[in-house]
């Protein structure tokens, strides 16, 4: 067994915190994309993922993902964090606890990503139930396939930082969730515009920043693969941005800010599975080429009846799939020390990348569809039309994002509840 390495551990502690920040960045990104009356609810769905997914991960999700090498699911040996301590995690030089915490942040953000499909109408309570079950039944299972010794990684599928569980997992689950929950009442009838593009840009920036921990930490060390993934995380989104600008110019003669924020996400997603496997040159090519399919889906999706509200499918599902397949062609043993792609002489790699690109979307879509249908039998998934019109902030949380305070009358501080009468007369 290897020893714990101080440098590796120090970096992984930082990387874990970086990935956790991404969920807040995502909250800001999503909140800016919705209408002002749904700002808080949208942000709160990301906060809910922080709450629920971290708990389910510690209770059982981590064990299902990372205990043993069963083909489909892991064991329950690490349930309740049993045997997760200071010794190095097998195959790494970092404490098992840090490894668990780092992986937990991945589960959290993936749950938060899915919420983008159902914002502005799904009931908060129903989302909490969904988040708890989804984090175990979908995320943990797919993480086991790709990271934890399951059938994909065992057969040689290359997925550096989560093209399978995180990106395709969230993207195709989002499509299923949008279909089950249904479109917003005004969808296709009224324009529903992002209410704060600055939030969107700032959120995208925080996500990119955090993504250096996400990809750069997925080598679990400060070794070559981490360094390569870290650097590629800078290069790929930059290329995606440039191409996105060009596509925007061709289509609308103007470069858009919301488009740029989207391009940052798409670029980061593209390099997520490929980060530690392809050369910086190919990473730049991936960023440029990979922009096209996601752009196409973003243009096409709003013309359909499917209200996959914040385009999780295009930004994460499609870009994740593109990245996974790209590895099959351009992986380079000289850079990654693991495997070559088709272009460098190994067609077998492409085969298992392709299988992952079919299996992951199919499982994520099917399982999420089923799960939401079952939850829907037990409780209503969405707010009523009247509540949707009022906005989810007031209806679900009793708060507003942009409260003026004018005309607000103090009723009581909770601490002095019985003094309510006296305080109320102070108006």
């Amino acid at each position, binding site marked *: 067994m290897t020893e714990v390495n101080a440098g590796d551990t120090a970096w992984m502690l930082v990387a874990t915190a970086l990935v956790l920040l991404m969920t807040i960045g995502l909250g800001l990104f999503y909140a800016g994309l919705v209408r002002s*009356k749904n700002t808080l609810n949208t942000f709160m769905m990301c906060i809910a993922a922080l709450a629920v997914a971290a708990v389910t991960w510690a209770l059982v999700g981590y064990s299902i993902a990372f205990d043993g090498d069963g083909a489909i699911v892991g064991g329950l040996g690490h349930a309740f964090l049993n045997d997760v301590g200071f010794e190095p995690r097998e195959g790494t030089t970092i404490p098992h606890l840090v490894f668990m915490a780092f992986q937990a942040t991945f589960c959290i953000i993936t749950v938060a990503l899915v919420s983008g499909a159902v914002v502005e109408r799904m009931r908060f309570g129903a989302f909490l139930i969904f988040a708890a079950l989804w984090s175990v039944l979908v995320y943990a299972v797919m993480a086991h396939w790709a990271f934890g010794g399951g059938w994909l990684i065992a057969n040689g599928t290359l997925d550096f930082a989560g093209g399978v569980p995180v990106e395709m997992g969230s993207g195709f689950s989002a499509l299923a969730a949008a279909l089950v929950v249904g479109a917003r009442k005004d969808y296709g009838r009224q324009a529903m515009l992002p209410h704060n593009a600055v939030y969107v840009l700032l959120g995208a920036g925080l996500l990119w920043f955090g993504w250096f921990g996400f990809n750069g930490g997925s080598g679990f060390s400060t070794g070559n693969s981490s360094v390569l993934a870290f650097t590629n995380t800078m290069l790929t989104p930059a290329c995606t941005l440039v191409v996105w600008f060009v596509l925007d110019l061709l289509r609308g003669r103007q470069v858009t800010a919301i488009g740029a924020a989207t391009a940052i996400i798409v670029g980061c997603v593209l390099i997520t599975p490929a980060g530690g496997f392809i050369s910086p040159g190919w990473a730049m090519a991936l960023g440029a080429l990979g922009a096209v399919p996601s752009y196409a889906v973003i243009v096409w999706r709003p013309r359909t009846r499917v209200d996959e509200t914040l385009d999780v499918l295009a930004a994460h599902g499609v870009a994740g799939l593109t990245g996974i397949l790209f590895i099959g062609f351009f992986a380079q043993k000289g850079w990654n020390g693991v495997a070559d792609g088709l272009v460098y002489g190994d067609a077998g790699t492409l085969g298992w990348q392709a299988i992952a690109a079919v299996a992951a979307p199919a499982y994520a879509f099917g399982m999420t569809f089923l799960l939401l249908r079952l939850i829907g039998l037990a409780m209503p998934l969405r707010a009523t039309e009247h509540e949707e019109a009022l906005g989810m902030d007031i209806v679900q949380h009793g*708060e507003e994002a942009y409260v003026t305070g*004018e*005309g607000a*009358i*103090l009723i009581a*501080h909770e601490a002095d509840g019985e003094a309510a009468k006296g305080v109320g007369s102070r108006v």
Partner: protein
Amino acid sequence: MKLVIGIVRPEKANDVLEALYRAEVRGVSMSRVQGHGGELDRVETYRGTTVKMGLAEKVRFEIAVSDEFVQPAIDALCEGGRTGEVGDGKIFVVDLERAVRIRTGETDHGAVTPVRK
């Protein structure tokens, strides 16, 4: 020539705009206002402080119309703005003394008639 002032729920503003459009009433201003019309107060809580929101967000439409468009404008406001709950808003119709279209200097009836192309 009248000024029709309609105060409606913000979430019904789009429905009102659609109804006005269908009634071919084209000249409209709207503004966000806060008001109170006897509806139930909404209670919100911020960090242990509970407040009653005495004023509710409303949208105020101002529509200057020639006499034959007064009833269609009122109908559109009612049709688009009604939910049946307390707080749907009010409509006030007041006489309009003068109206001037700034671009052309046209006055009164000419000024409140939409430009036809």
